[in-house]
């Protein structure tokens, strides 16, 4: 084992937190690290973090680690993410928006013009892109931290890993593993509750199944997600096609595994609810 790099020991790594199209929930997770926040602040220099009032150099410096929240939705975002990338040694996306396009990517399935007229009184002042996309569609990303919102302990692990020069211990397997590690009884098998856990990336600690709810898929698809396969099980536990489609299209709707659901030839069953 080699000691952490000597530069790190002498000078605290500079961390910046950036926001694109998002709700701020993932950045807030960092502020929610109440017990650990002092250690974080000792260990790293929060050089630019507007949400915490750390204006610092106004985002004009160079950073060892950038945490990027939010998806790319405007022409301005397109330029800004390139700038962020240039300023960052390591770039980690935090949350479903930055990692998969977020709930706002639902608009990718329709014409954005339709929304503009409905939502805004004077749509001519709105400058927006056709699609809401993940950061990795635009620049190279060193690590994607999943979740809507992200998990506090995983965020701390990412910061600890990147500032100590090691890979983060964040596995890509299913939520079912977390259920079993906690000793949970499977709600699908024992209660017939539909659950997206078998195809959802771990990270939440199986929060919903622990409280007898099915998994909603906040962390997006797991490493070998069989989306069509889980749809069969959701159907077996009473969901109709419309409900299944809604379940697949939430925070991670634009992730490659989910965006094409249902597969082009829809099953000819059932009426609309």
């Amino acid at each position: 084992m080699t000691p952490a790099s000597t530069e790190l020991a002498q000078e605290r790594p500079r961390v910046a937190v950036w926001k694109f199209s998002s709700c701020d929930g993932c950045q807030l997770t960092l502020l929610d690290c109440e017990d650990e926040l002092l250690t974080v602040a000792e260990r790293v220099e929060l050089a630019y973090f507007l949400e915490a009032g750390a204006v610092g150099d106004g985002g004009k410096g160079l950073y060892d680690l950038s945490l990027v929240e939010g998806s790319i939705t405007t022409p301005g975002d397109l330029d800004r993410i390139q700038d962020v990338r240039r300023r960052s040694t390591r770039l980690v996306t935090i949350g479903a928006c930055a990692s998969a396009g977020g709930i706002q990517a639902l608009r990718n399935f329709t014409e954005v013009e339709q929304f503009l007229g409905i939502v805004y009184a004077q749509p001519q002042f709105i400058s927006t892109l056709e699609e809401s996309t993940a950061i990795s569609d635009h620049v190279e990303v060193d690590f994607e931290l999943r979740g809507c919102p992200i998990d506090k302990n995983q965020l701390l692990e990412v910061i600890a890993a990147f500032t100590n020069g090691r890979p983060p211990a964040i596995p890509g397997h299913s939520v079912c593993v977390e259920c079993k590690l906690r000793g949970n009884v499977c709600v699908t098998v024992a209660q017939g509750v539909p659950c997206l856990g078998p195809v959802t990336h771990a990270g939440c600690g199986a929060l919903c199944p622990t409280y007898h709810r099915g998994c909603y898929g906040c962390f997006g698809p797991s490493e070998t997600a069989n989306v069509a396969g889980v749809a069969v099980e959701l159907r077996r536990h009473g969901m109709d096609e419309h409900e299944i489609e809604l379940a697949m299209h939430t925070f991670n709707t634009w992730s490659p595994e989910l965006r094409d659901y249902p597969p082009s030839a829809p099953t000819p069953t059932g009426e609309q609810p």
Partner: protein
Amino acid sequence: MLSTGDDITVNHPEEHDSESDDDPSGSSAVVLGLDGLAALIAALWDRGYRVVGPTVRDSAIVLDELLTADSLPIGWGDEQAPGHYRLRRREDQARFGYVVGPQSPRQELSPQKVALVKIRRTADGFDADAVDPTPAAPIAFIGLRGCELAAMGIHDRVMIGGAHPDPVQSARGADRFVVGVDCGDPAATCFCTSMGTGPTAGAEMGPDNTETADLRLCELIDDDRHDFLCHVTSKAGAEVMETLEHRPANTADHLAAQEVRHRAVQCIEKHLDTDGLADRLMAVPDHPRWDEVAERCLSCTNCTLVCPTCFCSTIDDVGDLAGEMTTRTRVWDSCFTLDHSYLHGGAVHATTRSQYHQWLTHKLSTWWDQFGESGCVGCGRCTTWCPAGIDLVEEATALSRAPEINR
């Protein structure tokens, strides 16, 4: 009933030999009442064991600390099918009227997460301290079934039987006490008779199955009685029994136990043809059935994590933020994760098809090559707790036939 201290012996099988033709072990048999069962649990706590047994939680029968016999799943049974488990109310007040739940002794003997080493940065390097795996108290298991005893035996041979015994499992399994229970009401997913592990708790075990219960109960319930035929099969078992109220078993008791066993065997509908199975499965890597099952399989890992014989784990080194302290932790893993087979540059089992192939052939084929026995004890957990309802027996059977026949 005789009371404690009366001059009955529990260690002289000759007394009952003529009656106990279901009792090839040469152990002695007594009859324990419901109060006796409660006293047994209390006595085990008194003797310093941590008593672990079945109890109802979260819509299933799980293993947990059992403070008293009141926490047993009194009057509960279970209904099982591929991808399906429901608790059901029984018409009687049976204490062991269910089969097996989603958990097994594995979680006690080799828990999901175990800290192995703590590594601390020092001025001139680091200090590493192994974490002592010795539990505060030895474990007493209540209610383990034949398949679970067989699985414990397999785990012991794999984990501590070789040249490098696992310190965790050695420490946690040391001095354990086991109360086995014959199954009276097997589930639709059970196939212990095919694997030679049940439905009685230990009777059919082959010479390789060294794991036996210290006490083996058979629950006897009808209009006139509710008690337990209890075989005393070890010295530790006899010592505990001496402190409990009981009476010697008579012919009627043995006949009643035989009847329970007979009914249980009749109940078991699932059969796996194990003759040449290991070779038959390995001979068909291109069978189309692998593709079909891979379409259904969700690579969720449930089958492996509920299996009482699966032993795979991964090592997590997690450091704190300050970079001062790292804990090396052993965590359950499964061949349905990509990390499980990750070598330089990628996973060996990168597709669900390949993962499923690894799982099924390890349980039924390559386990023989590695350990000289089957890796499956026929408990049915993988089938019940598979959210996609994939049935091990059905898959193994289809795969060991020529593809045309399946069509």
